[in-house]
């Protein structure tokens, strides 16, 4: 089970960060987006290769009004 932005997702271990992005209707060229997996930044350059482990917590963040 993979947790995507705080929700249980359909993703399975072994799928990539790019697959997680696709669940959110995002492509790897999405602008203004950053990804953390288990509290570590996953650089954009590795989104298509970074494989998610079982129980991974994926956070996909973008700009919001604030401050």
């Amino acid at each position, binding site marked *: 089970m993979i947790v995507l932005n705080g929700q249980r997702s359909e993703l399975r271990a072994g799928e990539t960060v790019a697959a997680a992005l696709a669940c959110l209707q995002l492509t790897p060229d999405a602008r203004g987006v950053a990804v953390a997996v288990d509290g570590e930044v996953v650089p954009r350059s590795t989104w298509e290769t970074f494989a998610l482990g079982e129980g991974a917590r994926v956070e996909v*963040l973008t700009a919001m009004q604030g401050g």
Partner: protein
Amino acid sequence: MALSAPHHTAADTDELILAGRTLHSRLLLGTGGFPSLELMAAAIAVSGSELVTVALRRIDPAARGSLLDVLAEAGVQLLPNTAGCHTARDAVLTAKLAREAFATDWIKLEVIGDEDTLLPDAPELLRAAEELVADGFVVLPYTTDDPVLARRLQDVGCAAVMPLGAPIGSGMGIRNPYNLALLRDAVDVPVVLDAGIGTASDAALAMELGCDAVMAASAIARAEDPVRMARAMRAAVEAGRLARTAGRIPRRLYATASTLEEGRAEFFG
């Protein structure tokens, strides 16, 4: 008699250098709280601000935001913040994600220590600042008005300090102008008044006390007419800066006549 040109005061070309970047406006804007992106864009345009904050939050696939497009259109530099972070660890990770998302190493560092007052957590703030500076970030920390903490933040390499005048969003103005004046003297880096501004006179006072810039968020965004308030803040920051650089008269308890005593008529014996 030769008259000096009245339009060429020092403050007319009075740019702010912040981490090597030249800013022509001494007003920073927060983007939170505007009723619409249109009003936000109009307020930014009227304010003249060149540096505006954005937060980092989970993406909502339903609400494909055009916030970044609007800000790009406005031609402003993004200043991502770490709003909502309560630990150095969270703040450092958020800063790194912001760098990844927005391709900027500038970060407005906020580490909150209390839910009700949203006051900064000093030890966590200092720890996060040190770590981020070491990682190459341009760190602008939201801090209390404590002059000693401000100096410690400067010492670990922060590019500026952003003291509060009062709690975030409180609109209470500058509750301790004496501390702010002490803080101003305690550091060499730019001082940007961050929180507490409620109306234009608060911004002017901050500048008169020697702040290099003022950050306004709720005061503009949540005003009844945000665009009009943006104009007011711009004018206030400019007025306060002019007054500061003009050098005000000292305060005196008793009157000092503004008209010469000499040559006064004596009408009766």
